[in-house]
Protein backbone atom coordinates (compact mmCIF):
# COMPACT_ATOMS: atom_id res chain seq x y z
CA UNK A 1 0.00 0.00 0.00
CA UNK A 2 1.03 3.59 -0.50
CA UNK A 3 3.31 4.97 2.19
CA UNK A 4 3.35 8.62 3.13
CA UNK A 5 4.71 10.61 6.03
CA UNK A 6 2.61 11.52 9.01
CA UNK A 7 3.10 15.15 7.99
CA UNK A 8 1.82 14.43 4.47
CA UNK A 9 -1.15 12.62 5.98
CA UNK A 10 -2.14 15.69 7.96
CA UNK A 11 -1.67 17.80 4.84
CA UNK A 12 -4.02 15.57 2.86
CA UNK A 13 -6.56 15.75 5.64
CA UNK A 14 -6.46 19.53 5.48
CA UNK A 15 -6.70 19.55 1.70
CA UNK A 16 -9.63 17.19 1.57
CA UNK A 17 -11.57 18.95 4.30
CA UNK A 18 -10.87 22.41 2.93
CA UNK A 19 -12.05 21.28 -0.49
CA UNK A 20 -15.15 19.67 0.96
CA UNK A 21 -16.21 22.60 3.13
CA UNK A 22 -15.38 26.19 2.36
CA UNK A 23 -15.92 27.14 5.99
CA UNK A 24 -12.82 25.25 7.04
CA UNK A 25 -9.78 27.48 7.35
CA UNK A 26 -6.55 27.45 9.25
CA UNK A 27 -4.72 30.16 11.14
CA UNK A 28 -1.45 30.24 13.01
CA UNK A 29 2.04 31.67 13.13
CA UNK A 30 4.24 31.16 10.08
CA UNK A 31 2.04 28.51 8.57
CA UNK A 32 1.45 30.03 5.16
CA UNK A 33 4.71 31.66 4.13
CA UNK A 34 6.79 29.00 5.77
CA UNK A 35 4.56 26.01 5.14
CA UNK A 36 4.95 24.93 8.74
CA UNK A 37 8.04 23.97 10.71
CA UNK A 38 7.37 20.37 9.84
CA UNK A 39 6.31 21.11 6.27
CA UNK A 40 2.81 20.17 7.30
CA UNK A 41 1.12 23.07 5.52
CA UNK A 42 3.17 23.14 2.30
CA UNK A 43 1.08 24.08 -0.69
CA UNK A 44 -2.07 24.89 1.24
CA UNK A 45 -2.00 28.66 0.68
CA UNK A 46 -1.29 28.10 -2.99
CA UNK A 47 -4.48 26.08 -3.33
CA UNK A 48 -6.72 27.87 -0.83
CA UNK A 49 -5.29 31.36 -0.67
CA UNK A 50 -3.66 33.30 2.12
CA UNK A 51 -7.08 34.10 3.55
CA UNK A 52 -7.98 30.54 4.38
CA UNK A 53 -4.39 29.65 5.27
CA UNK A 54 -3.66 32.58 7.43
CA UNK A 55 -0.43 33.72 9.02
CA UNK A 56 -1.05 35.54 12.27
CA UNK A 57 0.75 37.84 14.65
CA UNK A 58 2.52 36.19 17.60
CA UNK A 59 -0.68 36.34 19.61
CA UNK A 60 -1.77 32.94 20.78
CA UNK A 61 -4.65 34.28 22.84
CA UNK A 62 -5.96 36.11 19.79
CA UNK A 63 -5.45 33.06 17.60
CA UNK A 64 -7.55 30.84 19.83
CA UNK A 65 -10.00 33.61 20.68
CA UNK A 66 -10.48 34.43 17.02
CA UNK A 67 -10.97 30.77 16.21
CA UNK A 68 -13.66 30.53 18.88
CA UNK A 69 -15.36 33.68 17.62
CA UNK A 70 -15.22 32.49 14.03
CA UNK A 71 -16.62 29.11 15.05
CA UNK A 72 -19.53 30.85 16.76
CA UNK A 73 -20.08 32.74 13.53
CA UNK A 74 -20.40 29.55 11.51
CA UNK A 75 -16.87 28.87 10.36
CA UNK A 76 -14.85 25.74 11.13
CA UNK A 77 -11.44 27.04 12.12
CA UNK A 78 -8.33 25.00 12.66
CA UNK A 79 -5.83 26.84 14.86
CA UNK A 80 -2.19 25.87 14.81
CA UNK A 81 -0.32 26.22 18.11
CA UNK A 82 3.20 25.98 16.65
CA UNK A 83 4.26 24.09 19.75
CA UNK A 84 1.84 22.58 22.27
CA UNK A 85 3.97 24.26 24.93
CA UNK A 86 2.41 27.59 24.01
CA UNK A 87 -1.05 26.51 25.06
CA UNK A 88 -0.35 28.04 28.43
CA UNK A 89 -0.48 31.42 26.76
CA UNK A 90 -4.07 30.88 25.66
CA UNK A 91 -5.19 28.52 28.39
CA UNK A 92 -7.98 30.83 29.50
CA UNK A 93 -9.41 30.94 26.01
CA UNK A 94 -9.18 27.16 25.82
CA UNK A 95 -10.65 26.20 29.16
CA UNK A 96 -12.85 29.12 30.16
CA UNK A 97 -14.23 30.00 26.74
CA UNK A 98 -13.84 27.25 24.15
CA UNK A 99 -14.68 24.39 26.48
CA UNK A 100 -17.57 26.08 28.27
CA UNK A 101 -19.40 28.24 25.76
CA UNK A 102 -21.81 25.59 24.57
CA UNK A 103 -22.71 24.36 28.03
CA UNK A 104 -22.73 27.71 29.77
CA UNK A 105 -25.07 29.18 27.18
CA UNK A 106 -27.45 26.25 27.39
CA UNK A 107 -26.68 24.77 24.00
CA UNK A 108 -27.25 27.96 22.03
CA UNK A 109 -23.79 27.73 20.54
CA UNK A 110 -21.68 25.16 18.78
CA UNK A 111 -17.92 25.61 18.70
CA UNK A 112 -16.66 23.45 15.84
CA UNK A 113 -12.94 24.04 15.92
CA UNK A 114 -9.70 22.12 16.07
CA UNK A 115 -6.51 23.10 17.83
CA UNK A 116 -3.47 21.46 16.31
CA UNK A 117 -0.80 21.09 18.94
CA UNK A 118 2.60 19.62 18.00
CA UNK A 119 4.00 18.08 21.15
CA UNK A 120 6.64 15.83 22.54
CA UNK A 121 10.37 15.53 22.68
CA UNK A 122 12.41 16.48 19.68
CA UNK A 123 16.18 16.58 19.71
CA UNK A 124 17.07 18.84 22.60
CA UNK A 125 14.35 21.41 22.11
CA UNK A 126 14.48 21.74 25.91
CA UNK A 127 12.06 22.76 28.62
CA UNK A 128 9.69 25.03 26.71
CA UNK A 129 9.48 23.23 23.37
CA UNK A 130 9.19 19.56 24.24
CA UNK A 131 6.21 19.03 26.45
CA UNK A 132 3.24 16.70 26.33
CA UNK A 133 0.37 18.24 28.26
CA UNK A 134 -2.68 16.30 27.10
CA UNK A 135 -3.60 15.29 30.65
CA UNK A 136 -4.73 18.81 31.53
CA UNK A 137 -7.43 18.68 28.90
CA UNK A 138 -8.78 15.34 30.01
CA UNK A 139 -9.71 17.16 33.21
CA UNK A 140 -11.65 19.85 31.31
CA UNK A 141 -15.20 18.89 30.39
CA UNK A 142 -16.34 20.25 27.05
CA UNK A 143 -13.26 19.43 25.00
CA UNK A 144 -12.37 16.29 23.09
CA UNK A 145 -8.75 15.31 22.76
CA UNK A 146 -7.17 13.06 20.15
CA UNK A 147 -3.60 11.94 19.50
CA UNK A 148 -2.72 9.86 16.43
CA UNK A 149 0.17 7.41 16.57
CA UNK A 150 0.70 6.90 12.85
CA UNK A 151 0.08 8.41 9.44
CA UNK A 152 -3.23 6.66 8.88
CA UNK A 153 -4.70 7.85 12.13
CA UNK A 154 -3.17 11.28 11.63
CA UNK A 155 -5.27 11.65 8.53
CA UNK A 156 -8.37 9.94 9.81
CA UNK A 157 -8.47 11.68 13.16
CA UNK A 158 -7.78 15.10 11.73
CA UNK A 159 -10.55 14.74 9.17
CA UNK A 160 -12.94 13.47 11.82
CA UNK A 161 -11.94 16.27 14.17
CA UNK A 162 -12.61 18.92 11.54
CA UNK A 163 -16.06 17.43 10.93
CA UNK A 164 -16.92 17.16 14.60
CA UNK A 165 -19.09 19.95 15.95
CA UNK A 166 -17.22 20.04 19.26
CA UNK A 167 -13.96 21.77 20.08
CA UNK A 168 -11.13 19.31 19.66
CA UNK A 169 -7.48 19.37 20.53
CA UNK A 170 -5.38 17.36 18.12
CA UNK A 171 -1.99 16.52 19.59
CA UNK A 172 0.51 15.59 16.91
CA UNK A 173 3.90 14.37 18.03
CA UNK A 174 6.73 16.34 16.48
CA UNK A 175 8.95 13.33 16.05
CA UNK A 176 6.22 11.46 14.20
CA UNK A 177 5.91 14.07 11.45
CA UNK A 178 8.71 12.66 9.35
CA UNK A 179 7.78 9.01 9.83
CA UNK A 180 6.07 7.05 7.10
CA UNK A 181 3.05 4.83 7.32
CA UNK A 182 0.55 3.12 5.07
CA UNK A 183 -2.31 5.30 3.98
CA UNK A 184 -4.55 4.10 1.14
CA UNK A 185 -4.89 6.58 -1.67
CA UNK A 186 -8.42 6.68 -2.99
CA UNK A 187 -10.36 6.21 0.15
CA UNK A 188 -12.10 8.53 2.55
CA UNK A 189 -10.34 7.93 5.85
CA UNK A 190 -12.22 8.85 8.97
CA UNK A 191 -11.14 7.50 12.33
CA UNK A 192 -14.00 7.62 14.83
CA UNK A 193 -13.43 9.91 17.77
CA UNK A 194 -14.02 8.29 21.13
CA UNK A 195 -12.97 4.78 20.17
CA UNK A 196 -9.69 3.12 21.06
CA UNK A 197 -8.20 0.51 18.77
CA UNK A 198 -6.80 -2.87 19.63
CA UNK A 199 -3.63 -2.44 17.63
CA UNK A 200 -2.32 -5.90 18.42
CA UNK A 201 -4.18 -8.75 20.01
CA UNK A 202 -2.57 -10.64 22.83
CA UNK A 203 -3.46 -12.52 25.95
CA UNK A 204 -0.83 -12.01 28.63
CA UNK A 205 -0.84 -8.32 29.31
CA UNK A 206 -2.53 -5.15 28.06
CA UNK A 207 -0.40 -2.21 27.04
CA UNK A 208 -2.38 1.00 26.68
CA UNK A 209 -0.60 3.77 24.87
CA UNK A 210 -1.03 6.51 22.27
CA UNK A 211 0.93 8.89 20.08
CA UNK A 212 4.64 8.21 19.71
CA UNK A 213 4.86 5.78 22.62
CA UNK A 214 2.88 3.28 20.56
CA UNK A 215 6.17 2.56 18.84
CA UNK A 216 7.77 1.68 22.14
CA UNK A 217 4.78 -0.46 22.91
CA UNK A 218 5.31 -2.43 19.71
CA UNK A 219 9.05 -2.69 20.32
CA UNK A 220 8.36 -3.95 23.82
CA UNK A 221 5.82 -6.46 22.52
CA UNK A 222 8.39 -7.81 20.06
CA UNK A 223 10.92 -8.06 22.82
CA UNK A 224 8.45 -9.86 25.06
CA UNK A 225 7.34 -12.18 22.26
CA UNK A 226 10.86 -13.58 22.25
CA UNK A 227 10.21 -14.80 25.74
CA UNK A 228 6.81 -16.12 24.90
CA UNK A 229 4.88 -13.23 26.36
CA UNK A 230 2.00 -12.16 24.16
CA UNK A 231 1.04 -8.55 24.76
CA UNK A 232 -2.17 -6.93 23.64
CA UNK A 233 -1.68 -3.31 22.59
CA UNK A 234 -4.39 -0.69 22.73
CA UNK A 235 -3.93 2.54 20.87
CA UNK A 236 -6.09 5.05 22.66
CA UNK A 237 -6.41 7.37 19.64
CA UNK A 238 -8.86 9.51 21.61
CA UNK A 239 -7.64 10.70 24.99
CA UNK A 240 -10.87 12.39 25.98
CA UNK A 241 -13.33 10.88 26.31
CA UNK A 242 -11.39 7.75 27.17
CA UNK A 243 -12.80 4.55 25.72
CA UNK A 244 -13.15 2.68 29.00
CA UNK A 245 -14.88 -0.29 27.50
CA UNK A 246 -12.07 -1.32 25.20
CA UNK A 247 -9.58 -1.03 28.02
CA UNK A 248 -11.65 -2.93 30.53
CA UNK A 249 -12.47 -5.69 28.04
CA UNK A 250 -8.82 -6.17 27.31
CA UNK A 251 -7.78 -6.23 30.96
CA UNK A 252 -10.56 -8.70 31.67
CA UNK A 253 -8.82 -10.98 29.22
CA UNK A 254 -5.15 -10.35 29.99
CA UNK A 255 -5.38 -9.64 33.72
CA UNK A 256 -2.49 -7.23 33.52
CA UNK A 257 -2.14 -3.59 32.59
CA UNK A 258 0.70 -1.28 31.68
CA UNK A 259 0.14 2.26 30.48
CA UNK A 260 2.83 4.13 28.59
CA UNK A 261 2.99 7.74 27.49
CA UNK A 262 5.68 10.28 26.81
CA UNK A 263 4.17 12.83 29.17
CA UNK A 264 5.38 13.04 32.73
CA UNK A 265 4.09 10.00 34.59
CA UNK A 266 2.74 11.77 37.67
CA UNK A 267 -0.68 13.23 37.06
CA UNK A 268 -0.71 12.00 33.47
CA UNK A 269 -3.37 10.27 31.41
CA UNK A 270 -2.01 6.97 32.71
CA UNK A 271 -3.22 7.90 36.16
CA UNK A 272 -6.80 8.16 34.95
CA UNK A 273 -6.60 4.85 33.13
CA UNK A 274 -5.10 3.13 36.14
CA UNK A 275 -7.81 4.65 38.31
CA UNK A 276 -10.58 3.47 35.99
CA UNK A 277 -9.28 -0.07 36.14
CA UNK A 278 -8.72 0.07 39.90
CA UNK A 279 -12.33 1.17 40.21
CA UNK A 280 -14.09 -0.89 37.62
CA UNK A 281 -11.78 -3.77 36.85
CA UNK A 282 -9.88 -4.47 40.03
CA UNK A 283 -10.95 -8.07 40.14
CA UNK A 284 -9.50 -8.69 36.72
CA UNK A 285 -6.02 -7.78 37.86
CA UNK A 286 -3.49 -10.48 38.63
CA UNK A 287 -0.66 -8.03 39.11
CA UNK A 288 -0.07 -4.40 40.02
CA UNK A 289 -0.68 -1.89 37.27
CA UNK A 290 2.48 -0.27 35.91
CA UNK A 291 2.74 3.19 34.42
CA UNK A 292 5.60 4.29 32.23
CA UNK A 293 6.05 7.98 31.59
CA UNK A 294 8.63 10.72 31.63
CA UNK A 295 10.53 11.53 34.79
CA UNK A 296 9.26 14.25 37.06
CA UNK A 297 11.37 17.18 35.85
CA UNK A 298 11.14 19.87 33.19
CA UNK A 299 12.64 18.61 29.94
CA UNK A 300 16.41 19.06 30.18
CA UNK A 301 18.43 20.28 27.21
CA UNK A 302 21.54 18.15 27.22
CA UNK A 303 21.18 14.99 25.11
CA UNK A 304 22.33 12.81 27.98
CA UNK A 305 19.71 14.20 30.29
CA UNK A 306 16.98 14.29 27.68
CA UNK A 307 17.59 10.59 27.17
CA UNK A 308 17.41 9.99 30.90
CA UNK A 309 14.15 11.91 31.03
CA UNK A 310 12.47 10.05 28.18
CA UNK A 311 10.32 6.98 28.91
CA UNK A 312 11.83 3.95 27.24
CA UNK A 313 10.96 0.60 25.72
CA UNK A 314 13.05 -1.20 28.34
CA UNK A 315 10.86 0.25 31.05
CA UNK A 316 7.81 -1.27 29.40
CA UNK A 317 9.55 -4.62 29.02
CA UNK A 318 10.82 -4.57 32.58
CA UNK A 319 7.47 -3.47 33.96
CA UNK A 320 5.70 -6.33 32.25
CA UNK A 321 8.25 -8.93 33.23
CA UNK A 322 7.81 -7.94 36.83
CA UNK A 323 4.09 -8.53 36.54
CA UNK A 324 4.48 -12.07 35.36
Amino acid at each position, binding site marked *: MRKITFSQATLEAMQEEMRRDENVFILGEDIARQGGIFGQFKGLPQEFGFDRVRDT*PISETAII*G*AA*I*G*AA*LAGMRPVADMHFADFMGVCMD*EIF*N*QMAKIRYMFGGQATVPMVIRAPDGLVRSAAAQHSQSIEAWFLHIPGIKVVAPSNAYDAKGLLKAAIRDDNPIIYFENKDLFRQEGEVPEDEEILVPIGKAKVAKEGKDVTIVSYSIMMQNAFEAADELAKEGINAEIIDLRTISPIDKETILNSVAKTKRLLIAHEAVKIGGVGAEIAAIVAEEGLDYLDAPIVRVGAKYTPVPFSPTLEEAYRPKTEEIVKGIKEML
Partner: protein
Amino acid sequence: MYDKALLKDFYKTMVSIRYFEETIDEMSLKGEIPGFVHLYIGEEAIATAVCQNLTHKDYIQSTHRGHGHTIAKGAQLDRMMAELFGKKTGYCKGKGGSMHIADFSVGMLGANGVVGGGYTLAVGGALAEQMKGTDNIAVVFFGDGASNRGTFHEALNMAAVWKLPVIFVCENNEWASTTPYLTQTSVKDIADRAVGYGIPGVIVDGNDVFEVYEAAKTAVERARRGEGPTLLEAKTYRIKGHFVGDPEMYRTKEEVKERFDSNDPIKRFEDKVLSSGDMTESDLEEIREEIKFEIEKAIDFAKNSPFPGVEELYTDLYV
Protein backbone atom coordinates in the same frame (compact mmCIF):
# COMPACT_ATOMS: atom_id res chain seq x y z
CA MET B 1 -33.07 66.14 14.09
CA TYR B 2 -33.86 62.53 15.06
CA ASP B 3 -37.11 60.98 14.07
CA LYS B 4 -39.50 60.14 16.80
CA ALA B 5 -39.34 56.38 16.31
CA LEU B 6 -35.63 56.50 17.03
CA LEU B 7 -36.13 58.68 20.07
CA LYS B 8 -38.72 56.26 21.36
CA ASP B 9 -36.34 53.38 20.79
CA PHE B 10 -33.63 55.15 22.75
CA TYR B 11 -35.94 55.81 25.63
CA LYS B 12 -37.53 52.42 25.62
CA THR B 13 -34.19 50.66 25.70
CA MET B 14 -32.69 52.86 28.38
CA VAL B 15 -35.75 52.59 30.57
CA SER B 16 -35.95 48.84 30.04
CA ILE B 17 -32.42 48.46 31.25
CA ARG B 18 -32.99 50.76 34.21
CA TYR B 19 -36.19 49.11 35.39
CA PHE B 20 -34.91 45.63 34.74
CA GLU B 21 -31.88 46.30 36.84
CA GLU B 22 -33.67 48.10 39.63
CA THR B 23 -35.84 45.04 39.90
CA ILE B 24 -33.02 42.55 39.95
CA ASP B 25 -31.08 44.68 42.41
CA GLU B 26 -33.99 44.20 44.78
CA MET B 27 -34.47 40.53 43.96
CA SER B 28 -30.81 39.83 44.33
CA LEU B 29 -30.64 41.51 47.74
CA LYS B 30 -33.66 39.47 48.76
CA GLY B 31 -31.75 36.36 47.78
CA GLU B 32 -34.07 35.39 44.96
CA ILE B 33 -31.35 35.67 42.34
CA PRO B 34 -28.33 33.46 42.92
CA GLY B 35 -24.73 34.21 41.99
CA PHE B 36 -22.90 37.43 41.27
CA VAL B 37 -24.93 40.29 39.81
CA HIS B 38 -23.30 43.41 38.35
CA LEU B 39 -25.48 46.37 37.51
CA TYR B 40 -25.28 48.72 34.55
CA ILE B 41 -27.43 51.47 36.03
CA GLY B 42 -26.22 54.88 34.91
CA GLU B 43 -24.42 53.51 31.86
CA GLU B 44 -27.53 52.73 29.80
CA ALA B 45 -26.86 55.26 27.08
CA ILE B 46 -23.82 53.39 25.80
CA ALA B 47 -25.31 49.98 25.05
CA THR B 48 -28.48 51.66 23.83
CA ALA B 49 -26.78 53.97 21.38
CA VAL B 50 -24.22 51.49 20.09
CA CYS B 51 -26.70 48.66 19.54
CA GLN B 52 -29.13 51.00 17.84
CA ASN B 53 -26.66 50.91 14.96
CA LEU B 54 -26.62 47.13 14.77
CA THR B 55 -28.79 44.43 13.26
CA HIS B 56 -29.39 40.97 14.64
CA LYS B 57 -26.78 39.70 12.21
CA ASP B 58 -24.12 41.78 13.89
CA TYR B 59 -22.46 40.27 16.92
CA ILE B 60 -21.75 41.67 20.31
CA GLN B 61 -19.47 40.34 23.02
CA SER B 62 -20.34 41.55 26.47
CA THR B 63 -18.89 41.60 29.96
CA HIS B 64 -19.76 40.55 33.50
CA ARG B 65 -21.96 43.66 33.49
CA GLY B 66 -24.01 42.45 30.58
CA HIS B 67 -27.74 43.04 31.12
CA GLY B 68 -27.68 46.40 29.38
CA HIS B 69 -25.96 45.03 26.31
CA THR B 70 -28.32 42.09 26.16
CA ILE B 71 -31.43 44.20 26.37
CA ALA B 72 -30.11 46.75 23.92
CA LYS B 73 -29.27 44.02 21.44
CA GLY B 74 -32.90 42.93 21.53
CA ALA B 75 -33.25 40.04 23.95
CA GLN B 76 -36.57 39.40 25.70
CA LEU B 77 -36.87 40.47 29.31
CA ASP B 78 -38.77 37.38 30.41
CA ARG B 79 -36.22 34.85 29.25
CA MET B 80 -33.43 37.03 30.64
CA MET B 81 -35.16 37.22 33.97
CA ALA B 82 -35.71 33.48 34.00
CA GLU B 83 -32.02 32.95 33.33
CA LEU B 84 -31.04 35.20 36.19
CA PHE B 85 -33.32 33.18 38.45
CA GLY B 86 -31.62 29.99 37.27
CA LYS B 87 -34.75 28.69 35.63
CA LYS B 88 -35.12 26.20 32.84
CA THR B 89 -36.91 28.72 30.62
CA GLY B 90 -33.96 31.11 30.71
CA TYR B 91 -31.85 31.83 27.68
CA CYS B 92 -29.18 29.43 28.88
CA LYS B 93 -31.64 27.00 30.47
CA GLY B 94 -30.34 28.11 33.85
CA LYS B 95 -26.78 27.06 33.16
CA GLY B 96 -25.40 30.57 32.72
CA GLY B 97 -26.96 33.15 35.01
CA SER B 98 -26.27 36.86 35.06
CA MET B 99 -22.57 36.56 34.29
CA HIS B 100 -23.18 34.29 31.30
CA ILE B 101 -26.35 35.68 29.82
CA ALA B 102 -26.54 35.28 26.04
CA ASP B 103 -29.08 35.36 23.24
CA PHE B 104 -27.55 34.01 20.09
CA SER B 105 -30.75 34.59 18.14
CA VAL B 106 -30.18 38.34 18.24
CA GLY B 107 -26.39 38.22 17.91
CA MET B 108 -25.69 38.67 21.62
CA LEU B 109 -22.90 36.11 21.98
CA GLY B 110 -22.54 36.23 25.67
CA ALA B 111 -21.63 38.03 28.83
CA ASN B 112 -18.28 36.86 30.15
CA GLY B 113 -17.04 36.17 33.63
CA VAL B 114 -13.46 36.62 32.52
CA VAL B 115 -12.62 40.31 32.34
CA GLY B 116 -11.17 40.96 28.89
CA GLY B 117 -12.37 37.60 27.62
CA GLY B 118 -14.51 39.03 24.85
CA TYR B 119 -12.06 40.98 22.69
CA THR B 120 -10.57 38.11 20.75
CA LEU B 121 -13.90 36.37 20.26
CA ALA B 122 -15.26 39.53 18.68
CA VAL B 123 -12.22 39.61 16.43
CA GLY B 124 -13.07 36.08 15.36
CA GLY B 125 -16.68 36.99 14.64
CA ALA B 126 -15.52 39.91 12.54
CA LEU B 127 -13.00 37.71 10.77
CA ALA B 128 -15.73 35.22 9.89
CA GLU B 129 -17.92 37.95 8.43
CA GLN B 130 -15.00 39.38 6.49
CA MET B 131 -14.21 35.96 5.08
CA LYS B 132 -17.85 35.36 4.19
CA GLY B 133 -17.95 38.71 2.46
CA THR B 134 -20.92 40.12 4.38
CA ASP B 135 -21.06 43.59 5.82
CA ASN B 136 -21.93 42.33 9.26
CA ILE B 137 -19.75 43.53 12.09
CA ALA B 138 -18.83 42.68 15.65
CA VAL B 139 -18.76 44.90 18.71
CA VAL B 140 -17.03 44.16 21.98
CA PHE B 141 -17.84 46.09 25.13
CA PHE B 142 -15.25 46.30 27.88
CA GLY B 143 -14.37 48.28 30.94
CA ASP B 144 -11.53 50.62 31.86
CA GLY B 145 -10.11 47.85 34.03
CA ALA B 146 -10.31 45.36 31.19
CA SER B 147 -8.31 47.70 29.01
CA ASN B 148 -5.21 46.54 30.87
CA ARG B 149 -5.60 42.88 29.98
CA GLY B 150 -3.18 41.52 27.39
CA THR B 151 -6.09 40.35 25.26
CA PHE B 152 -6.86 44.01 24.52
CA HIS B 153 -3.52 44.38 22.81
CA GLU B 154 -3.60 41.16 20.84
CA ALA B 155 -7.13 41.77 19.66
CA LEU B 156 -6.60 45.38 18.61
CA ASN B 157 -3.41 44.56 16.76
CA MET B 158 -4.96 41.63 14.94
CA ALA B 159 -8.11 43.57 14.09
CA ALA B 160 -6.14 46.55 12.86
CA VAL B 161 -3.64 44.68 10.74
CA TRP B 162 -6.39 42.58 9.15
CA LYS B 163 -8.77 45.55 8.85
CA LEU B 164 -11.55 43.61 10.52
CA PRO B 165 -15.05 45.00 10.99
CA VAL B 166 -14.99 45.19 14.76
CA ILE B 167 -15.59 48.03 17.17
CA PHE B 168 -14.00 48.15 20.57
CA VAL B 169 -16.25 50.04 22.96
CA CYS B 170 -14.61 50.98 26.23
CA GLU B 171 -17.09 51.80 28.95
CA ASN B 172 -14.85 53.89 31.15
CA ASN B 173 -16.91 54.12 34.31
CA GLU B 174 -13.88 55.25 36.32
CA TRP B 175 -13.89 52.16 38.50
CA ALA B 176 -12.61 48.65 38.14
CA SER B 177 -14.14 46.95 41.12
CA THR B 178 -12.58 48.93 44.02
CA THR B 179 -9.89 50.50 41.87
CA PRO B 180 -10.14 54.07 40.56
CA TYR B 181 -9.00 53.53 37.02
CA LEU B 182 -6.23 56.10 37.04
CA THR B 183 -4.40 54.31 39.82
CA GLN B 184 -3.80 51.26 37.61
CA THR B 185 -4.23 52.56 34.08
CA SER B 186 -1.33 54.42 32.56
CA VAL B 187 -3.33 56.79 30.34
CA LYS B 188 -6.12 59.15 31.14
CA ASP B 189 -7.85 58.54 27.84
CA ILE B 190 -7.94 54.89 26.94
CA ALA B 191 -8.81 55.98 23.41
CA ASP B 192 -5.18 57.13 23.15
CA ARG B 193 -4.16 53.53 22.90
CA ALA B 194 -5.55 53.50 19.37
CA VAL B 195 -2.32 55.18 18.28
CA GLY B 196 -0.48 51.94 18.95
CA TYR B 197 -2.59 50.20 16.33
CA GLY B 198 -2.95 52.93 13.74
CA ILE B 199 -6.73 53.07 14.11
CA PRO B 200 -9.14 55.85 15.10
CA GLY B 201 -9.51 56.42 18.82
CA VAL B 202 -12.64 58.38 19.69
CA ILE B 203 -13.82 59.77 23.00
CA VAL B 204 -17.47 60.42 23.71
CA ASP B 205 -19.65 61.46 26.60
CA GLY B 206 -21.05 58.07 27.48
CA ASN B 207 -24.04 59.52 29.24
CA ASP B 208 -25.22 61.36 26.18
CA VAL B 209 -27.09 58.85 24.07
CA PHE B 210 -26.94 61.12 21.06
CA GLU B 211 -23.21 61.62 21.15
CA VAL B 212 -22.57 57.92 21.57
CA TYR B 213 -25.00 57.18 18.77
CA GLU B 214 -23.23 59.46 16.31
CA ALA B 215 -19.75 58.22 17.12
CA ALA B 216 -20.87 54.61 16.99
CA LYS B 217 -22.58 55.24 13.70
CA THR B 218 -19.38 56.57 12.18
CA ALA B 219 -17.45 53.58 13.49
CA VAL B 220 -20.07 51.11 12.34
CA GLU B 221 -20.20 52.58 8.86
CA ARG B 222 -16.45 52.54 8.63
CA ALA B 223 -16.39 48.90 9.68
CA ARG B 224 -19.14 47.95 7.23
CA ARG B 225 -17.22 49.64 4.44
CA GLY B 226 -14.28 47.39 5.21
CA GLU B 227 -12.04 50.10 6.58
CA GLY B 228 -11.30 48.38 9.83
CA PRO B 229 -11.74 48.77 13.55
CA THR B 230 -12.35 51.76 15.79
CA LEU B 231 -11.60 52.18 19.47
CA LEU B 232 -14.43 54.12 21.04
CA GLU B 233 -14.13 55.30 24.62
CA ALA B 234 -17.34 56.28 26.34
CA LYS B 235 -16.78 58.25 29.55
CA THR B 236 -19.29 57.32 32.20
CA TYR B 237 -19.49 56.51 35.88
CA ARG B 238 -20.45 53.39 37.81
CA ILE B 239 -23.43 54.37 39.93
CA LYS B 240 -23.98 51.10 41.75
CA GLY B 241 -21.52 48.99 43.70
CA HIS B 242 -19.27 46.71 41.72
CA PHE B 243 -21.71 43.90 42.41
CA VAL B 244 -24.98 43.71 44.28
CA GLY B 245 -23.99 43.54 47.92
CA ASP B 246 -20.77 45.54 47.53
CA PRO B 247 -20.28 47.53 50.78
CA GLU B 248 -18.52 50.23 48.73
CA MET B 249 -16.07 51.19 51.45
CA TYR B 250 -13.81 52.78 48.87
CA ARG B 251 -15.95 55.80 48.00
CA THR B 252 -18.59 58.00 49.55
CA LYS B 253 -22.32 57.87 48.96
CA GLU B 254 -22.19 61.63 48.36
CA GLU B 255 -19.76 61.30 45.50
CA VAL B 256 -22.00 58.78 43.83
CA LYS B 257 -25.17 60.74 44.39
CA GLU B 258 -23.65 63.86 42.99
CA ARG B 259 -22.38 62.11 39.90
CA PHE B 260 -25.73 60.46 39.31
CA ASP B 261 -27.91 63.45 39.95
CA SER B 262 -25.91 65.63 37.63
CA ASN B 263 -25.41 63.10 34.91
CA ASP B 264 -28.13 60.46 34.76
CA PRO B 265 -28.29 59.55 31.06
CA ILE B 266 -32.03 58.96 31.20
CA LYS B 267 -32.71 62.26 32.87
CA ARG B 268 -30.49 64.02 30.38
CA PHE B 269 -32.41 62.40 27.57
CA GLU B 270 -35.75 63.38 29.06
CA ASP B 271 -34.67 66.98 29.62
CA LYS B 272 -33.43 67.22 26.09
CA VAL B 273 -36.43 65.78 24.27
CA LEU B 274 -38.90 67.62 26.45
CA SER B 275 -37.21 70.95 26.06
CA SER B 276 -36.81 70.48 22.31
CA GLY B 277 -40.41 69.42 22.14
CA ASP B 278 -39.56 66.24 20.27
CA MET B 279 -41.36 64.18 22.86
CA THR B 280 -43.99 64.99 25.43
CA GLU B 281 -44.23 63.95 29.05
CA SER B 282 -47.05 61.63 28.12
CA ASP B 283 -44.99 59.98 25.39
CA LEU B 284 -42.41 59.21 28.02
CA GLU B 285 -44.93 58.14 30.59
CA GLU B 286 -46.53 55.76 28.16
CA ILE B 287 -43.22 54.07 27.50
CA ARG B 288 -42.42 53.83 31.20
CA GLU B 289 -45.73 52.19 31.91
CA GLU B 290 -45.27 49.76 29.11
CA ILE B 291 -41.87 48.73 30.40
CA LYS B 292 -43.07 48.42 33.96
CA PHE B 293 -45.72 46.08 32.79
CA GLU B 294 -43.22 44.03 30.83
CA ILE B 295 -40.93 43.74 33.81
CA GLU B 296 -43.78 42.52 35.94
CA LYS B 297 -44.59 39.92 33.35
CA ALA B 298 -40.96 38.92 33.23
CA ILE B 299 -40.83 38.47 36.97
CA ASP B 300 -43.96 36.38 36.89
CA PHE B 301 -42.55 34.30 34.10
CA ALA B 302 -39.30 33.77 35.93
CA LYS B 303 -40.93 32.97 39.24
CA ASN B 304 -43.39 30.56 37.75
CA SER B 305 -40.85 28.73 35.65
CA PRO B 306 -39.37 25.48 36.91
CA PHE B 307 -35.76 24.97 37.88
CA PRO B 308 -33.91 22.62 35.58
CA GLY B 309 -34.06 19.02 36.72
CA VAL B 310 -30.93 17.12 37.61
CA GLU B 311 -31.32 15.12 34.41
CA GLU B 312 -30.24 18.25 32.58
CA LEU B 313 -26.81 18.32 34.16
CA TYR B 314 -25.25 16.50 31.22
CA THR B 315 -27.23 18.05 28.38
CA ASP B 316 -25.62 20.59 26.07
CA LEU B 317 -22.10 19.57 26.98
CA TYR B 318 -21.21 18.04 23.64
CA VAL B 319 -23.12 18.29 20.37
